[in-house]
Structures are given as C-alpha cells and as structure tokens.
C-alpha cells in the first residue's frame, strides 16, 4: 500500500534534518575530495586510461559514486539512530505501511546524497570536466537513482541492526569493498579474472559506468545494461527493506 502523503512527509523530514546539519554535509565530502584531488592529481600523468581522457576526468564519476555510496548508505543506516532515540516507534505505530515508510525514507536519503554529490559535481566542473546542461540534468537524475539503491540497502541493513555495534563492520566489510571493488578507481578492461568477477558482481560498478557514460561519453559497458542492472538492484533493495521492516519481534 502506497501512501503519498506519508511518503512526502518522511521525505521532507530527511531534507529538513539534512539542511539543519551543516557539519554532516561537509563531513561527508572530506574523504571523496581527498581521493579526487590527491589521486587525481597524483596519478594524472602516470596513468593512461584510454579514450583520450585524463585520469582526473576518468576518476570524477567514480568519486561521485563514492559520495553516493557513503551518503546513501549512512542515510539509510541512520534509522538505527531513530530506533535508539525512540522516534522509529512513532513511525512504526502510525497508520503508514512499511512500504510507504521505506519509500519515503529512501527518497529522502537519495535526495540528500544527491545534493552532496552535486557539490562535488560542481567542483569537478570547476577543475575541467565539461558538461552541457542536458548532461547535468542527466547526471542529477542518475545520481539520485544510484543513491536511491544505496539508501535502500542501508535501510535493509539497519532493519536488523539494533545498535551501532555492527556499524564499523558494515563500513569495513561492505562499504569499503563496494567502493574499491568497483570501476570507480580503475578501468574495467584488462583486470585479472578475480577482480573482474568481483566488479561485475558489485552493483556500484554499474552506477559508476552509467555516470561515466553520461559525463564523458564513454564507458566499458552498454549504458542501457548499466541502467537496467541499477534499476533491478534498486527494486530488490527496496523490497528487501520493506520486507525486513514488516517483520516484528
């Protein structure tokens, strides 16, 4: 059952909280900026990624993917805070279906992560990646869609997480591997077989390739395929999160 008003309410809540929390916005950008500036500048002259692209250009969509991954996942996992501070009960006891709750929350996380990524996008524009207005619009849409999947994934994880004890585990064993084992930092062709397998099983790979196609006009796979896989991933995560939240003690 989909309840539009409830979805909008929870969506807006995420945005309000995001806007009120400047430190969270800036904090989320630190590491990706470091990656972009340091790796980008450091390897720019060493690496040839082909296609007439500089490594810096190549890296930009990957680092944007990183912002979306971390921003989205953290936003989803933040439900654990709501649980600890009791606010989750207020939502769970309201006449709002679990599906609506998860959708509203996921849209909220997707929007806020997209905003963070947009800040990075503007920065990359400033340092030489060139995009026309159509590309910018497509990028914003793609970024939102990618963050949607990661937020839903964070929510699904948080549904079974009662406290922050497992948090470091999630960062180290899910988020970091997802980032490093995607095509965010290196081109997908000519990888050793094990890494090829790992990247192809990683949903993040497809999001990054989709953005690379939009921003740079080239990618190592058919963008239609990337979009299809991203969409399937989003649907799966959304369903999983809604299902997990409908299980009660």
């Amino acid at each position, binding site marked *: 059952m989909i309840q539009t008003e409830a979805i909008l*309410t929870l969506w807006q809540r995420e945005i309000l909280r995001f806007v009120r929390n400047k430190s969270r916005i800036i904090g989320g950008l630190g590491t990706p900026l470091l990656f972009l500036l340091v790796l980008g500048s450091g390897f720019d002259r060493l690496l040839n990624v082909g296609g007439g692209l500089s490594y810096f250009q190549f890296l930009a969509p990957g680092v944007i993917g990183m912002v979306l991954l971390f921003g989205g996942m953290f936003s989803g996992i933040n439900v654990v*805070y709501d649980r600890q501070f009791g*606010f989750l*009960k*207020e939502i769970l006891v*309201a006449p709002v279906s679990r599906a609506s709750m998860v959708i509203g929350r996921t849209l909220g996380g997707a929007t806020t992560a997209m905003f963070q990524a947009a800040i990075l996008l503007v920065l990359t524009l400033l340092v030489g990646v060139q995009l026309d207005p159509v590309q910018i619009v497509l990028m914003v849409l793609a970024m939102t869609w990618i963050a949607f999947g990661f937020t839903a994934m964070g929510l699904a994880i948080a549904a079974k997480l009662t406290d922050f*004890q497992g948090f470091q585990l999630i960062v180290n064993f899910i988020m970091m591997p997802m980032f490093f084992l995607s095509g965010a930092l290196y081109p997908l062709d000519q990888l050793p077989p094990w890494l090829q397998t790992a990247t192809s099983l990683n949903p993040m790979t497809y999001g990054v390739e989709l953005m690379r196609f939009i921003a740079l006009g080239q990618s190592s796979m058919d963008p239609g395929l990337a979009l299809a896989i991203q969409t399937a991933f989003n649907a799966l995560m959304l369903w999983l999160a809604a299902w997990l939240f409908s299980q009660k003690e």
Partner: protein
Amino acid sequence: MHAIETHQLTKAFGALTAVHPLDIHVKKGEVFGLLGPNGAGKTTTISMLVTLLSPSGGTAKVNGFDVQTQPDLVRQSIGIVFQDESIDDELTAWENLDMHGRLYGMPWELRKKRIEEVLKLVGLQPRQDDVLKTYSGGMIRRLEIARGLMHHPNVLFLDEPTLGLDPQTRRHIWTYIRKLNRDEGVTVILTTHYMEEADFLCDRIAIMDQGKIVALDTPKKLKERDATLHVASGKIDELYQALSAMNPVRQNGKILIETSQPQRSLKRVLSIAEKRKLALTEIDVKKPTLEDIFVELTGHSIRDEKAGTSDRFKAYNRAMTGRRK
C-alpha cells in the same frame, strides 16, 4: 463490543515470560489502569496491543480489530504516548506535531487547528518553533502527550504519561485526560507508578506483577478490600466480648476489625453496641491506600521513579554503546 479484548495473550522473550496468559476486557469509554512495579510487563502488554510486538500466544482485539491480522486498522484508531522518548529532536515542536498529523492523514486546516489546541493545552506555544534539542525532559513529555491526543484516537495508550512532570503540569494533564474521556468518550489505557494518578483517573485498575494480573477492580473496591474498623469504648472489655464473632483484635486501647465490607461491618458494630447499651467513644473505618493494597498483593512497594534530563543522556549512551537499558 469492547475497546480492548485479550484472550490468553502471552509474550515470552526466550526463557523469560514477560506476560503470562492475559485476559482483559476494557469497556468503551473506560479509563483502565495498569499498575505494577518495574518489569511487571506493562509496557510489553501495551506494545502488543499497539502492534509493535508480536504476541507469543493468544489473541488481542483493539477497537474490534485483531492486532495480528489487522494491524493497519488498529493503528488507525489508536494513539500512544510511549514510556521512552520518541520525538525527533532535530525538528521543532511544531514540525514534530505537523509530521504526526500528516502521518495520520489529517488535512492541513484540521492539523493547524489541533496543533494550536494541543500546544496550548501543554503550555508549549511560546516554544513551538524551538528545536527539541533545547527542551527539558518534562517539556518533551508534555509535547509527546500533546502529540498522542492530537489525532483524536478512539483508544489512547499512555505508558507512564506523567513520569518526570512537575505536580502542577501533572494535575493539568490529569484534568485534560479526564475531560477528553468524559467529553469525547476516548478510552484510555494508562500505566503508572503513581498511586494518586491511578486513583484519580482510573475507572478500573489492574495490578500487575511478574507478568500476571493479581487484582482487577475499581479503585474504590480495591481500597475496600480489608478495610479496618477502629472502635473504642469506655467499656472496652465488654465490647470486645460482644464483637467476638467478628474476629476483633485489641491494640492500643482500641478494637480493630478487618473487613472486606466496611459498610456492613460498621452497621453490625453499631447495632451490637446499641443492643448491649455500650457507648462508643470512637468508630472509624480506615481504608488502606492503593499503596497498601499494592504492597499486600505484590510483596513489594512501588517505586516512585523520577525521570529527568538524564534520560536523554541515557538514550544517547545506549545509542553509542549499544547497551539496552
């Protein structure tokens, strides 16, 4: 139809049975109290009734809807003030209430009207646009009560609603709960550690201990259980003889008679005294307080806990260390 009907409702957490098979019937329009010490199972019972916890056994109906098979309909028709804090402290009071109204499908005009009403009720209007981080524990409690009332539920669950409130606010809230119940027929289920609260508000009280209901009656009837008659006379020895059928006890120059029907016993004593021409210098019915009854039934006294600002700190600590309270 009852507002609440449970049949053998049970909840076990592993080896611990928090709620033993429970049969209660709460009438529509009633104020029903659950009184019990820490860990008695009050919150667990309420959590099952408001669809947050699945029963391990038995069934429960709220407003005629089954909590397990029709949770959405149950949720639609109830309001709850949780024992623990349940607000978004990064939003303002107004935003919290508005969000609540929207989740309950209230249209804008109605929302606006009700938010103003309930904020006024709990005296938070001047602070309505402050982020809740800046509120004291008592102010948050008041806001939560306001929120629970906002959407005019048929059944209102109040889990220790006035914990940590100052006496003046507490009175104020009591009066309002009563008014709401009288004027709008809202059924209220209330848990409390405060005897006066149960006494003042409740039509019936269930005393709960270790997951079981050990007594269930009106406050008046509960207090009449084992009332004591205090009788004195100039001719105390003769009087003692005359009343021997009533199991009298002599104490401090008085005669004490325990009775579960104080009015009848009183009449009986008076008529015996009259027949024997014994002038009474004192006759008095001493009713036990709810506290006395409670101690007698459960074997321990109820603790008047004060919640304070430290609760927020505890919640924070819990969040950071993952420790359950």
